[in-house]
């Protein structure tokens, strides 16, 4: 884009489609194609948590 471009006009038909859903009962792993992370809902002590896993290092975080 250049500076004189002032609007985003997406090609027709562009839409966000649901590609995955993760719940406590069905904790599917949602793998991003944009950032090297995947996301899953898991049980936690106080509440359900988001488990984030690095695709390359397997490092994990609980949120």
């Amino acid at each position, binding site marked *: 884009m250049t500076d004189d471009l002032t609007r985003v006009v*997406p090609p027709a038909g562009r839409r966000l489609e649901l590609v995955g859903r993760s719940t406590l009962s069905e904790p599917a792993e949602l793998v991003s194609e944009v950032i090297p992370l995947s996301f899953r809902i898991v049980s936690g002590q106080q509440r359900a948590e988001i488990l984030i896993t690095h695709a390359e290092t397997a490092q994990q975080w609980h949120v």
Partner: protein
Amino acid sequence: MVPSTPAAPPGEFDGPSRRIVKEYDKQTATLFALHSRRVSLMLTLTDPSMIVADPDIRDHLIEQRRAAGHDRYDEVWEGTYVIMPLPTDEHQHVTTALATIFQTVLGWIGAALVRAGVNVSDRLEGWKENYRCPDVAVFLKETRAINDGTHWLGGPDFGVEIRSPDNRTYEKLEFYAKVLTRELLVVGRDPWTLELYRLQGDGWNETQENER
């Protein structure tokens, strides 16, 4: 935060507007301010919906929110001012944690810009007439969005929306597709769910000012 049972302080509103708030302050409502300018006002206060047709009241409410710093999460949807509920502590915790993890993973220098709340619009000029504020936005080094300082023209490569009651997350999906957000993670908390949305197809078309 917009209180669920807003009580107008004495003298805050005059005449009909104060009466309107009183009438609806026990319910959930939507206020639309239709006015002489293009920006209108939608307040989620109570139910049922309510239209405020007085531009002075609209301006007064918006000014109050700005003065109090409550407008940080407000948005404008195609000219309609949308007052969003302020995030809870848990909401902010998730936002901060995700943004920190993303920035750590992607690197703090150069590889990506991670924002915990940022203005995203589909236009450079007049952007305040149409913008959304994703909870977390990741702009990769190769992003096609443009950082204009006040806002980004174009959606993030990866965005996160954390659902709260009344924050109308799903109504934003069309906008995020329009600005070509590549992936959007929607976090639900009652119950806890994750939904990953992906832009189908790809590509930009840009128009110049004189083509509008």
